[in-house]
């Protein structure tokens, strides 16, 4: 295993505890995106000149583990790296450093996904379904290609999955444009589950749906997860959705996990100032007239991942920041109740 270049993998020891039944393990996973250099810069670089490479480190040294049957919620604002991490966990993007293991096996071989045991559901069912394929063919394609079902049995398998996700089996001959957004997301879920995965990575699966449809899809997700004993990584910016479906939650900020632990604890007693600020920022349903809405927004903006602040990346916005926060990046360290927090003052 190649060690991450500079960081030396400090966070690698931060896997919660050795857990025998953990099905997904990520160790020191890092993703850098290097910009395409212009021809001039490439020649200058080849001649030995110092060329500034403004690489974006989207995910930095993330270690985590997901147990059999558990749902891990990944939360953060735009640009925090949650989707990039999700892609690496799902085996559809290779980490620049560190490794991912699903059931002890890397989900990627070289540049290609090498497992059917982990499947993904994405945010936009308009973009993730082939508009020219009947949805029956879309659902059957993967299982038939991988020999999970004989071609002759495929129509019955499709009908079964459509019924399980709450669609009329007769819809198999329809095209994606004939469905509403919620129905398309049901098709996307059926397609992922027809591959008989042990793990599902869901990236904002309900973010583009109306409230009443979102509730239907969340209920479907809860039912299927229970019936199939699925292990899930559930990525969302919506804190209340993540709380509803997750056993454990990891909060990300600028490419790193800043806090993780049991969902119930994170939401009732957040430790990291960013987690606290994020929870305070969410508008609450205000039902009492005298229950005055108070906003305690986090000051400032998300920093650019091109030039992350030194030390703790959150220090420019943090009310508790002191000298050490500007100088030294806090490590994700375990606390007595099993929580992991990366903060000098929490």
């Amino acid at each position: 295993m190649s060690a991450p270049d500079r960081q030396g993998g400090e966070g690698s020891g931060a896997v919660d505890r050795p857990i025998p039944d953990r099905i997904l393990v990520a160790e020191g996973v890092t993703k850098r995106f290097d910009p395409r250099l212009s021809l001039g810069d490439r020649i200058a670089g080849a001649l030995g000149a110092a060329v500034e490479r403004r690489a974006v480190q989207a995910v930095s040294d993330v270690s985590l583990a997901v147990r059999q049957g558990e749902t891990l919620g990944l939360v953060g604002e735009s640009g925090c790296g949650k989707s990039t991490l999700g892609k690496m966990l799902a085996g559809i993007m290779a980490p620049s450093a560190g490794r991912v293991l699903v059931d002890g096996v890397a989900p990627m071989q070289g540049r290609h996904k090498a497992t059917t045991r982990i499947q993904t559901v994405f945010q936009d069912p308009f973009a993730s379904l082939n508009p020219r394929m009947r949805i029956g063919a879309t659902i059957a394609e993967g299982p038939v290609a991988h020999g999970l079902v004989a071609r002759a049995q495929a129509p019955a398998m499709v009908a079964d999955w459509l019924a399980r996700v709450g669609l009329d089996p007769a819809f198999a001959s329809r095209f994606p444009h004939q469905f509403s957004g919620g129905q398309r997301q049901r098709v996307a879920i059926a397609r992922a589950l027809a591959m008989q995965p042990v793990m599902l990575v869901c990236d904002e699966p309900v973010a583009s749906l109306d409230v009443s449809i979102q509730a239907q899809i969340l209920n479907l997700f809860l039912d299927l997860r229970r019936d199939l004993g699925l292990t899930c990584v559930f990525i969302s910016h919506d804190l209340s959705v993540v709380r509803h479906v997750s056993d454990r939650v990891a909060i990300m900020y600028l490419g790193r996990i800043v806090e993780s632990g049991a969902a119930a604890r994170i939401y009732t007693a957040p430790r990291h100032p960013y987690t606290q600020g994020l929870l305070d920022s969410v508008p609450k349903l205000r039902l009492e007239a005298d229950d005055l809405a108070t906003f305690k927004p986090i000051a400032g903006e998300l920093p650019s991942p091109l030039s992350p602040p030194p030390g703790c990346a959150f220090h420019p916005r943090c009310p508790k920041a002191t000298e050490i926060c500007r100088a030294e990046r806090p490590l994700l360290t375990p606390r007595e109740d099993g929580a992991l927090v990366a903060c000098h003052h929490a």
Partner: protein
Amino acid sequence: MSALLEVRDLHTHFFTRAGVVRAVEGVSFSLARGEILGLVGESGSGKSVTGFSLIGLVDPPGRIVSGSIRFDGQELVGLPQAAMRRLRGARIAMVFQDPAATLNPVLTIGQQMALAVRAHGRASEAAARDLAARTLTRVGIPDAAARLDAYPHEFSGGMRQRVAIATALLHGPELIVADEPTTALDVSIQAQILAEMKKLAKESGTALVWISHDLATVSSLADRVLVMYAGRIVESGGVSETLRAPRHPYTRGLLDSLPATARPGEKLNQIPGSTPSLLALPPGCPFAPRCPRADAACATDPPDVVTGGRLVRCHHPLAVAA
């Protein structure tokens, strides 16, 4: 005191090749100065078309077919374009969801704000820039004078939305129509904008129509709420009474759909089915096919039941909790 805005029986229809889409069907409400009204509904409920009708920006094939919109005593329905343009941006302003689409990418912030200043009166370049800088400062943009020369792409999404809000505020409007203004923003940025909007409405006495699908945002910002479904108002009232004890089964269903109202991991009390097509709406209550309380009576148009400042349009409204 008379209301600032008085909407009566508004009908806005779209005449498409597939048929007439009755996007807004008999909407009535009024708004006082300084009041914040939350207009809530799902996609296709008619909330945005209602907003566009208020500011006279319904494009063909859509048009206001009947009804009245009185703004400070002046009728806006049928008002000539030129007269509407004098109002819009000056006394009535708007903020849209996507600030990347509403700001001109090839003009600096200062140039486009100056255009907005001069659209409603003469001002020297220095005076226009000065007003722009002061307004940007009001919405929480630090070092505003220096940022006037930046282009929209140099701003983050949250900062662009602040610029859009500042542009709306330039002329001290009496009414702002905001359509999902924080939907595209991250939660920490949304909280900053909500806090500032609330402060601005209180300080300047500007009335605000806040169009959103997000009940939690509306509950923490608005004084009153209108819930729309299939082009009609199904329930309205003070925001906390209405959301604490909704009387329309649809409002109840929307609240029950929110994960925040349920215990984690428990099944949500979902509304079955999906929103109906406005092209072929059956007669009677449009929510009836999804409603747990529906019966034969719901095949006829439900009455408006008004009690103590609250309105519910339903044959079988839920009881008001004691």
